[in-house]
């Protein structure tokens, strides 16, 4: 398990039973680690986004599963003319690189990796992170001048590569919405039809939706799940149309969403009280699971605190492993990392006192 926190990174190892965990870290102590992720081609190859309000962006690469790291390229330059996006007050504001939120290694080449940035842009490295080039098609999308930042910034935070067609990539930007390319990032289309956001002037607008997270099961790439600012959504046609599947959730605000590795219709969310109260409702930490692809949700509470709990779980802080039964993992703003080795039926705190967790990823090694 690869855990990024506000004050460093941690690597947690376990065997297939997932009962006891060895904790290594902190790596890069004192730095914010927004995300770290391993290559599916070579699991020893890890990439980490290390950043700081003082010292800017640093990129790290490991070729030995995190035992040693080397700094690689950290020049993220926007290509060509850089136009404005909207600022919080609606005024035009120049695009400015701030940090990398999410790293998505290629499905076929360990040296190739995508980086999702704030202000919203997509970069790619084909040399193991040594150099980065922008794929400017998304930042120069016809709607880009209308995008405005969410509370966390104008960030491109989700990148999903279609395992059946590597030229098809889904991304999400807060608060612009979801987008899809079918030509490896050259051109993009907004895929937000069916989303409705009551806090924007036109609730059904093409863009302006604060999408918090997308999730896909690799066996069913036309189906995606979305945790929007408010609303849990689902599409079965690659994003052409979305429908709400919030169903009986106690609140449909939240950040994370993920899919069980062994069933594309089993989905997990973690409801958060509201956009003004970024903690779980009623002091209870509850994961909600749907076995029907949404609409019908059950609370999973065994092993999770059910009183006096007021943590948040951020958008990149939930992951699933590839075992059967599926392991589900998430990290909280309070520094706890919880794990379930039985599809979410029961949970254990793997660690309780890390810095606030920004991201959780899992590698299933054979």
């Amino acid at each position, binding site marked *: 398990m690869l855990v990024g926190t506000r004050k460093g990174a941690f690597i947690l190892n376990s065997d297939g039973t997932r009962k006891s965990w060895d904790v290594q870290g902190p790596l*890069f*102590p*004192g*730095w914010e680690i927004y995300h770290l992720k391993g290559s599916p081609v070579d699991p020893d190859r890890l990439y980490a986004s290390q950043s*700081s*309000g*003082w*010292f*800017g*962006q*640093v990129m790290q690469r490991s070729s030995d599963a995190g035992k040693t790291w080397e*700094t690689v390229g*950290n*020049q993220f*330059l926007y290509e060509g003319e850089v136009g404005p996006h909207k600022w919080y007050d609606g005024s035009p504001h120049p695009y400015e690189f701030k940090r990398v939120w999410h790293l998505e290694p290629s499905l076929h080449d360990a040296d190739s990796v995508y980086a999702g940035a704030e202000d919203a842009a997509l970069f790619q490295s084909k040399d193991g992170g040594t150099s980065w080039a922008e794929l400017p098609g998304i930042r120069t999308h016809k709607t880009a001048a209308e995008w405005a930042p969410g509370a966390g910034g104008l960030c491109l935070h989700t990148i999903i590569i279609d395992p059946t067609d590597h030229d098809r990539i889904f991304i999400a930007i807060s608060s612009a919405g979801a987008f899809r390319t079918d030509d490896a990032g050259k051109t993009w289309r907004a895929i937000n039809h069916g989303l409705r956001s009551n806090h924007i002037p036109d609730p059904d607008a093409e863009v302006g939706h604060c999408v918090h997270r997308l999730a896909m099961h690799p066996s069913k790439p036309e189906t995606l799940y979305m945790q929007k600012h408010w609303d849990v959504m689902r599409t079965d046609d690659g994003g052409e149309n979305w429908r709400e599947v919030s169903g009986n959730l106690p609140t449909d605000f939240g950040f994370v969403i993920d899919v069980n590795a062994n069933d594309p219709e089993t989905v997990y969310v973690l409801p958060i009280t509201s956009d003004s109260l970024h903690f779980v409702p009623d002091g209870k930490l509850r994961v909600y699971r749907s076995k029907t692809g949404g609409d019908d949700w059950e609370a999973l509470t065994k092993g999770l605190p059910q009183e006096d709990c007021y943590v948040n779980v951020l958008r990149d802080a939930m992951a699933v492993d590839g075992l059967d039964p599926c392991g589900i993992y998430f990290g909280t703003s309070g520094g706890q990392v919880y794990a379930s080795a039985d599809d979410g039926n029961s949970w254990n705190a793997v660690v309780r006192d890390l810095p606030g967790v920004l991201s959780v990823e899992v590698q299933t090694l054979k």
Partner: protein
Amino acid sequence: MIQVVLPRNLQSLAGTGRTVELDVSGQATQRSVLDALEARYPALLGTIRDPGTKRRRPMLRFFACEEDHSDDPIDAPLPGEVAAGKEPYLILGAIAGG
């Protein structure tokens, strides 16, 4: 040799101690010292100056001989004591945040 004092996070990033000694060719200016520092420790590229504009990062400041040189012209000569290696050139992170 010019002495440069680094903030803690940059020490760990560069894998060095608090003070590094640099051989700077030509006149000692902030640009020549920072260029030499980044050449010796490439991991620091972009962490003190923006990699594109080369402007000082806003939450860092540069001090020497008890004077704040943060807003001095980048090519202005540093004090003679710094050039002579008797006083360090200090890179400081703002005391802010948590």
